[in-house]
């Protein structure tokens, strides 16, 4: 039976890899942003900053990349496949229902890991970022595993959004979540009002955990951020479940 899970993940991976809008935007955007803000402008340590931008932004653009890979794979993927009727055909088939979800999660994490690895390479080669191997691994591992709450958020979006509006819906959620949590520009450079909103965003807690791995000064404790993300995961999964049960009672001729 494990064969089914492997086949489902392989198909999902090939499907997304060949979908240029997905593979290019999830890989290229974070790398490009990191080049602008982390490398071009941030090699030197800013006065008052705790560390060079190239180092700091490795954590936050890593989080940005992983969240994007996940939200697009789930949010847009599920909405489109639901719209096509593809999901119904799978539901009527003997596919274990978890296979669909697990395949998307595994593939989102894989794409996330690839982008994170490329970001690390940029940071190490051109940003002058140096760390012991175990710290690279700890940061990388944190970033990849941190995708899990966003699988649930993506599923919630995918279960509610229409197939055509899904990419726009994902962007409307993804971009503010990234900006307001300090993923693009460090929180301390954001206006005061945004700093107050940040703790209510899952991306903020994710970024704080990742920054902790760099020994950057963070707010709160790692455990507290993990608990907050667990709570967000439960809420998003609940919303996703509501969207899913709504689907069953739609009217068809």
């Amino acid at each position, binding site marked *: 039976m494990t064969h089914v899970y492997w086949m489902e993940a392989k*198909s999902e991976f*090939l499907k997304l890899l*060949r979908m240029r809008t997905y593979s290019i935007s999830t890989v290229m955007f974070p790398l490009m942003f990191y080049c602008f803000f982390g490398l071009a402008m941030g090699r030197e340590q800013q006065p008052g900053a705790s560390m060079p931008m190239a180092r700091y932004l490795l954590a936050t653009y890593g989080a940005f990349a992983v969240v994007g890979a996940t939200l697009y794979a789930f949010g847009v993927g599920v909405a489109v496949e639901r719209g096509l009727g*593809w999901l119904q055909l799978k*539901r*009527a088939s*003997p596919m274990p229902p978890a296979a669909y979800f697990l395949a998307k999660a595994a593939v989102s994490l894989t794409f996330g890991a690839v982008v994170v690895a490329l970001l690390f390479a940029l940071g190490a080669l051109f940003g002058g970022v140096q760390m012991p191997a175990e710290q690279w691994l700890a940061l990388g591992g944190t970033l990849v595993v941190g995708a899990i709450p966003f699988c649930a958020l993506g599923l919630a979006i995918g279960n509610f959004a229409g197939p055509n509006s899904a990419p726009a819906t994902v962007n409307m959620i993804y971009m503010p979540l990234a900006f307001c949590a300090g993923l693009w520009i460090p929180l301390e450079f954001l206006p005061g009002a945004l700093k107050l909103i940040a703790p209510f965003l899952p991306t903020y807690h994710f970024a704080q955990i990742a920054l902790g791995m760099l020994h950057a000064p963070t707010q709160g404790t790692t455990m507290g951020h993990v608990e907050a993300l667990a709570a967000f995961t439960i809420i998003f999964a609940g919303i996703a479940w509501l969207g899913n049960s709504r689907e069953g009672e739609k*009217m068809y*001729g």
Partner: protein
Amino acid sequence: MPVAELKRATKRYGAIEALRGIDLKIERGELLALLGPNGAGKTTAVRILLGLAKADSGTATVFGYAPASQEAKLRRGALLQVAKVPETLRVREHIELFSSYYSNPLPFAETIAAAGLNGIENRLFGDLSGGQKQRVLFALALCGNPGLLFLDEPTVGLDVAARRALWGHIRTFVARGGSVLLTTHYLDEADALANRVAVINRGRIIAEGTPAEIKARTAQTGLEDAFLELMKEEAA
């Protein structure tokens, strides 16, 4: 035991009664065509037998099992009115994926032959013509080696040659002892393929029999005219 059966099945969506107590039986080796105007309840009946919707009352079974059970799922295949399956997978990848869901799938080469996909196994789904796409969907319904196929408007939008080709593949499946529930708006299709026809309107079965019996009942020579006659009687 019938291959699939609905007994006094009812289904209501808000104020709309989609099914008002339907009895439907598909026997082994038979192709039953379910005909009816849009909104008559065809799709609802199919969705209940596929386990995608639940009847409010009455019973539904597939090979004696609940339609949503794994036992039922393993024994049936479906071609739904899916516009598309993901376009960036190859025909081969789609079929191998779907085959992996079943415990006793057809060998890949047999599925390809049974759906007429020889020579296009390695093409991306998005690059296929309408007829080829429909045959891939047929292959996905067939690849698990099911005893029962649900074909929901299988030839919509196909040209004559593609349509006839798909008919040929459906006939072969039935000739080998498979059963089919076909819903279609093309009455010549029902006439050409069906052993038995059930006409559904406003959530009720209003006529049932062989295509010849339906025609005889309404004193019409074509199934299409017979169908229109039945609808007129209903309205009166």
